[in-house]
């Protein structure tokens, strides 16, 4: 009798002993978990029982399964070491769990979570092995996909972080270079303005003609006004605007002190006004001319008071410079300084008024708001 016949005989015996009337046998037969039983007493441990779930999982017919050793489920990719571990456990009559790659009849594979345990007979010897299987392909695939996804995510995150770090570094370098260039440029402009001031001062010292010297001094004052405005411009970072009120205060104090006029009092009524940096120099020159005029003409030979107002106006801001000095003869309007004021006011689209007063002199300059003063070609 061949092993195959012996297996079939044992299968028939089991079938007979444990018919469908036996609830245990019925349960084993009907459970959704694939189950097989092998017989150790027959050569090569053939399968003598396989339930419907096992048949379904393997793709083989019951007839093809009965009488064969379980190794027909193995294939080229099955882990040999794991198979050897299972064989050793069986040889030692021990139970074993393992997860191996198995092959169906059609060649497709599945991950099989095996649990194999010995079945003892009445005499205490091992007669059979009971093997339950579980197709964990989907679970493994899901786990692998999750691992792959996590790895891909970690990789993407690392790449993104590296890119962000690179870009940040590049931007920082670019910003740093730009800032340095701006500082260098600012430094040079200030130094050159200083140089121009020093040059005019040096030359005016060598001039003996009082009229020429006065002209040189007037020019020096104008250059200084531009220098002062530039100094206050870039001391605030951003540099897009300049503080008109602070400038008016500084230039007026400097002019009065520089003239040594302790008898001239300054009165300020300045609201906080900023102007676009592009308008800084013209505004500075206008303020300089008006204050200088008050000090050197209006209050030339008498003590007095210069009032400086900077107030919001419906069309922008109104700058008013007045003194309680001698007033001005109409022909004094032809002076270069006053011509300068009219010229620069036109550039700023500002309106200059010299309202008549009972005493002293008033000049009011209405500066348009930022939206209007930018308009070119007016």
């Amino acid at each position, binding site marked *: 009798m061949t092993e195959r016949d012996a297996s079939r005989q044992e299968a028939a015996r089991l079938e007979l002993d444990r018919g469908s009337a036996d609830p245990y046998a019925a349960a084993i037969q009907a459970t959704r978990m694939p189950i097989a039983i092998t017989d150790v007493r027959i050569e090569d441990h053939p399968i003598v029982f396989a339930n419907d779930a096992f048949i379904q999982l393997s793709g083989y017919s019951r007839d093809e399964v009965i009488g064969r050793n379980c190794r027909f489920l193995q294939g080229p990719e099955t882990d040999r070491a794991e198979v050897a571990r299972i064989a050793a456990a069986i040889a030692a009559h021990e139970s074993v769990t393992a997860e191996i790659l198995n092959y169906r009849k059609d060649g497709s594979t599945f991950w099989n979570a095996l649990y194999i345990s010995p079945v003892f007979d009445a005499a205490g010897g091992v007669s059979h092995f009971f093997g339950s299987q579980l197709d964990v392909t989907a679970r493994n695939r899901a786990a692998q996909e999750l691992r792959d996804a996590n790895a891909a995510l970690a990789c993407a995150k690392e790449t993104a972080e590296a890119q962000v770090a690179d870009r940040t570094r590049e931007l920082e370098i670019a910003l740093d270079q730009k800032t340095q260039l701006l500082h260098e440029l600012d430094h040079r402009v200030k130094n050159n303005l200083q*140089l121009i001031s*020093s040059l005019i001062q040096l030359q005016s010292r060598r001039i003996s003609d009082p009229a020429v010297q006065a002209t040189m001094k007037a020019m020096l004052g104008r250059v200084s006004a531009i220098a*002062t405005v530039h100094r206050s411009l870039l*001391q605030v970072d951003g540099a897009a605007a300049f503080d008109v009120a602070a400038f008016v205060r500084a230039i007026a104090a400097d002019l009065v002190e*520089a003239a040594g006029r302790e008898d001239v009092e300054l009165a300020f009524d300045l609201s906080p006004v900023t102007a676009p940096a592009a308008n800084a120099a013209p505004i500075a020159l206008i303020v300089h001319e008006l204050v200088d005029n008050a000090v050197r003409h209006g209050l030339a030979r008498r003590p007095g008071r210069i009032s400086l107002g900077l107030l919001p106006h419906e069309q922008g801001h109104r700058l008013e410079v007045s003194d309680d000095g001698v007033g001005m003869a109409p022909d004094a309007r032809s002076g270069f300084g006053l011509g300068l004021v009219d010229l620069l006011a036109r550039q700023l689209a500002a309106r200059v008024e010299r309202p008549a007063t009972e005493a002293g002199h008033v000049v009011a300059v209405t500066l348009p708001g930022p939206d209007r003063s930018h308009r070119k070609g007016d």
Partner: protein
Amino acid sequence: MRILIVEDESLVAAEVEFIVAEAGLEVVGIESDAAGAAAAIARERPDVVLLDVHLADGPTGVEVAGGAVAGGAAVLFMTANRRRLPPDFAGAVGAVSKPYTEWGMRAALRYVVESIRDGGSRRSPPSSLELAPAWAERWRAHSADQSAQ
């Protein structure tokens, strides 16, 4: 009082020399780089060093200030590069920012010279002069002592 001018722009240095002389002070030298400044400080022992930050040999003014202060001189920076100064002004009494007006420089020099001579001042410094925090404190404290007596 003896003044050393350290400035690499010769026209600016010449003009500062006039301002110093007109204030009745003695100019003991004009130097344009760190080495010349250090030698002049050792040789002349000036009371005040008027010091540009950016000199002929680079931004060495701050370094020169350290040596001048160690040598017992008072240092006043004149600079278009205020950002280069450390928070303690490297021991200098203060700084005048370029471009200054002629009056601004005169007023700053006068204030510093009077404060050194008197140990302080009751007036507030001119707007052209930014005092180093330590010196502002010292000169204010001294003048407060004076008024208390």
